């Protein structure tokens, strides 16, 4: 009983260390491949389109409703204190610094990260990566590095779009739910927010993009066991990305203020 308990704890710790080690090793390989930066530009360009442009609708939808949810929370105060001058600031501050990067990062991890894991995993299962190696093509420079760079750039850019949409959504719902005029929303928004708030969130977004890309590539290339294994890998990858996003959000909030 006791020995089996220790065995299961030990096994979990070993598995966890294996994953962390694998991700760190992947990080090291990526750095090596970037010194000097030599990677497949076509693949990079294709991934920018596939990961960024094709995610725009889902990001817009998420951001629009997020803005709505934020303004509803703010309008609880409006009803109580009549504090219409706080709505724009409240919605903007929470969207820029926290809610925007986190929710968009989670959606990005769900759409792009898990898609990437599924794609790389399928390539592993159907032995396409071995095929690349047999043709003397470095899978890191050809597959991994373009994806990592594309995800960092695209989550950064998508967060900018998402912020704009969320604020517009907040202004729209603010007018119809909380009864705050556009002008009032804008005054409150523009007088109380600084560029620092926006940059704080954007730095977070770029780092979240990096976390999602590392996680999804690691779980993708370490797939074992056919189509079922791909499903499991996708599952593990989204969980690990969500965990990474939240933990790094905590660390980053402290360190960039």
């Amino acid at each position, binding site marked *: 009983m006791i020995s089996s308990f220790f065995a299961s704890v030990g096994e979990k710790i070993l598995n966890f260390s294996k994953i962390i080690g694998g991700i760190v090793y992947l990080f090291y390989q990526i750095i090596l491949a970037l010194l000097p930066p030599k990677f497949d530009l076509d693949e990079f360009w294709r991934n920018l389109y596939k990961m960024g442009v094709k995610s725009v609708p889902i990001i817009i939808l998420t951001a629009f409703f997020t803005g709505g*949810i934020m303004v509803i929370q703010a309008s609880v105060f409006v*009803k109580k204190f009549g504090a219409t001058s706080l709505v724009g600031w409240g919605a903007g*501050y929470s969207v820029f610094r926290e809610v925007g990067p986190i929710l968009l990062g989670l959606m990005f991890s769900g759409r792009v990260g*898990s898609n990437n894991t*599924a794609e790389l995993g*399928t390539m592993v299962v159907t032995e396409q990566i071995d095929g690349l190696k047999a043709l003397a093509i470095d899978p890191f420079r050809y597959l991994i590095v373009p994806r990592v760079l594309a995800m960092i750039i695209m989550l950064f850019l998508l967060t900018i779009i998402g912020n704009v949409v969320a604020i517009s959504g907040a202004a729209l719902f603010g007018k119809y739910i909380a009864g705050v005029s556009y002008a009032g929303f804008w005054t409150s928004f523009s007088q109380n927010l600084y560029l620092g708030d926006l940059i704080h969130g954007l730095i977070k977004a770029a780092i979240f993009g990096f976390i999602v890309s590392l996680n999804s590539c690691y779980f993708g290339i370490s797939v074992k066991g056919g189509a079922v294994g791909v499903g499991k890998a996708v599952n593990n990858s989204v969980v690990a990305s969500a965990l990474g996003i939240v933990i790094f959000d905590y660390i980053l909030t402290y360190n960039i203020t």
Partner: protein
Amino acid sequence: MIKQISTNIFATIGDKTINIFVAAKTLFLVTLNTFRGVFHFKSREKGEILKQAYEIGNRSFLFVSVTLSALGMVLVFQVCLQINKITGDQSQVGPEFIKGMIHAFVPILTAMMLATRVGAGIAAEIGSMKVTEQIDALRMSGVDPIDYLIVPRFIASIFMTFILGIYAALLVILAGAFMAHHSFGVNYNVFFVFDKVTWGDLIIGSTKLLVHGSAIPVVSGYCGLTTKVGSEGVGTATTRAVINSSLAVIILDFIISAIGLMTIQ
């Protein structure tokens, strides 16, 4: 040339519209059959609900604890930082934070985390069964896959999301109080004031948890059941499950918040 392009555009739009309608219809039927299946007691395996509850609840415990406590601390940190800049009066942080957590943030964040973990898990499992033709085998032996696979997960998810949500709310409030005390010197007595929490907040928070908890297994079960056969199928189905259940949570949260604001708050 132009004629060809314009035909293509209409073909694409029509194709997408038809796809959306077919998907909506299938999702509606899955939802309907799930609700109906709750009352089909005989076609359920004994102990299946408890097994799923363990899978959904207990195994998400650590994940929810880590993510939600970190988020709680971050939110308090940001709020206190801003208040320090403007007024410096931090006596209202605790009560307002507790209120906001209960009716807004805890339900949506817990549900998003569960949509990621549980939704992906359900889709991966059911998708694997579909690819290995186990679902067809179930149908052939006269068992409805919705009754057998989705309904136990549905019931288990409603219960466990609710319980995890309550646990998460307590945890977030404790983590927030800890952060406010250590970084900004807010007294625990000033922070733990529950006067601001009304019955309306509790009702909205629990409604959200129940609705999100029922949406996640239905949406991801639907994605699992519609998996396409092939080595890419399961991965794609899992991806769709994460995205669709997260989106469902966000949209439902918005609708319930809006209704709540107009009626009881």
